[in-house]
């Protein structure tokens, strides 16, 4: 890696000032699992790395009295999938946090870094977007909030200014009987980048009819993309096969995939449909109170109480 300066501010204000002092030449680092790789291969060079893990607010998981949860931007994945309130209220986000890399990556990688890195394949972005997550951003002139669903603007591109810091991701209180589910396809069982992924979220009424839904796809466009037509197809139904099929067709129509070493256009389009159907069915089952294991729940080892 080329030389750079390392700073570890203790407050949001200090971090923003350190970024603003070197526009474009300083970047925040949370887990470093994207940033350090980029610095190593020379895809990026920086004058300053601003380690945000020393800022208390960024390390907090705060559960609001209404059931909404704020996850600090420096909270690593293992704290997300081991947090009882996140597990209970946002299993789709747990699906994602537990498949980012392997155990050692999950010890460092954050949802905030996944989002700010802006990769179309970011596994947490669809799960966050479908529950209406909001990015809490701090800059020199104060704070602003921005929906996660519109946060990414191109591969590696986001709405964050060079002098802005992601403080936290705010998950609004979930309506009753609402849950999400995230699925991706990779050729291995673990440790790979999504060929395609789908995050789905639904809310049911007391009769089990879908009253609200969202679907966001990963790895099939320059950014994660929302598929409103898939949501429309499932709203007003009980998730019958015909409705799931219509949602699947909508996802296939919305996908704008490329062919690369991970998969072809045709395969990705096909996967968009299959994963949308399965993620929606899983979200509906969860909203009905059924247990739908995450991709790796059967294997995942829960951390002991000591950590």
């Amino acid at each position, binding site marked *: 890696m080329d030389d750079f300066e390392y*700073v570890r501010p203790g407050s949001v204000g200090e971090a923003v000032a350190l970024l603003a002092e070197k526009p474009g030449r300083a970047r925040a680092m949370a887990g*470093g699992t994207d940033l350090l790789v980029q610095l*190593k291969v020379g895809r990026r060079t920086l004058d300053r790395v601003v*380690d945000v893990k020393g800022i208390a607010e960024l390390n907090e998981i705060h559960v609001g009295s209404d059931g909404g949860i704020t996850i600090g931007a420096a909270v690593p994945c293992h704290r997300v999938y081991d947090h009882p309130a996140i597990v209970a209220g946002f299993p789709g986000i747990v699906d994602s946090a537990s498949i980012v890399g392997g*155990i050692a*990556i999950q010890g460092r990688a954050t949802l905030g870094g996944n989002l700010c890195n802006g990769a179309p394949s970011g596994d947490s972005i669809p799960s966050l977007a479908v529950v209406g997550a909001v990015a809490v951003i701090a800059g020199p002139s104060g704070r602003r909030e921005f929906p996660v669903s519109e946060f990414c603007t191109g591969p590696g591109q986001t709405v964050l200014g060079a002098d802005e810091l992601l403080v936290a991701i705010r998950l609004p209180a979930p309506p009753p009987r609402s849950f999400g589910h995230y699925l991706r396809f990779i050729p291995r069982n*673990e440790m790979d980048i999504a060929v395609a992924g789908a995050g789905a979220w639904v809310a049911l009424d007391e009769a089990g009819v879908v009253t609200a839904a969202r679907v966001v796809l990963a790895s099939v466009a320059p950014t994660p993309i929302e598929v409103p037509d898939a949501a429309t197809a499932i709203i007003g139904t009980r998730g019958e096969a015909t409705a799931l099929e219509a949602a699947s067709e909508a996802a296939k129509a919305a996908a704008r995939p490329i062919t690369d070493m991970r998969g072809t256009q045709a395969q990705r389009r096909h996967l968009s449909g299959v994963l949308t159907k399965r993620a929606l069915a899983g979200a509906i089952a969860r909203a009905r109170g059924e247990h739908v294991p995450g991709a790796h729940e*059967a294997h995942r080892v829960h951390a002991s109480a000591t950590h």
Partner: protein
Amino acid sequence: MVAVDARTATKVVVQATINGEPVQFLAEPRQTLLECLRDVLSLTGTKEGCADGNCGACNVVMDGRLVNSCLVLGVEAAGASITTIEGIAPVGGLHPLQTAFLEQAALQCGICTPGFIVSASELLKRNARPTEDEIRFWLAGNLCRCTGYDKIVRAVLQAAEMIHPAA
């Protein structure tokens, strides 16, 4: 956590606890923890395979969490407690995982072995009797080009049995 301010110096003094001992070393901000362990502290038991987080050869325990030391900056170790492969065996003996790896012939070239043993030791701390599936999942971030993994999985099962014999 100790605050590190590198604004005035190229090399930074880092104080950490490594394998239970207080350690002080000089690190350039761009040096990874892996480089500091091997090149500065001569703790060469920790290996470099890929240098980008994919192989697990460099895995160490940092403040109770398994991490890829190739994706941690040396300066981030300030104030941290780190366990490397050198800290796994009790004085004058072997960790049950080391014994089991030898008995099961769970290594050939051996470059992946420190990473597997450090990683597996963290698994056994959390889950005394892991299933084969749980072992394979936990070790998914550790790559081995030689053994085909089966002997490694058997060695971890044996070590679990040695530590907590079935009633």
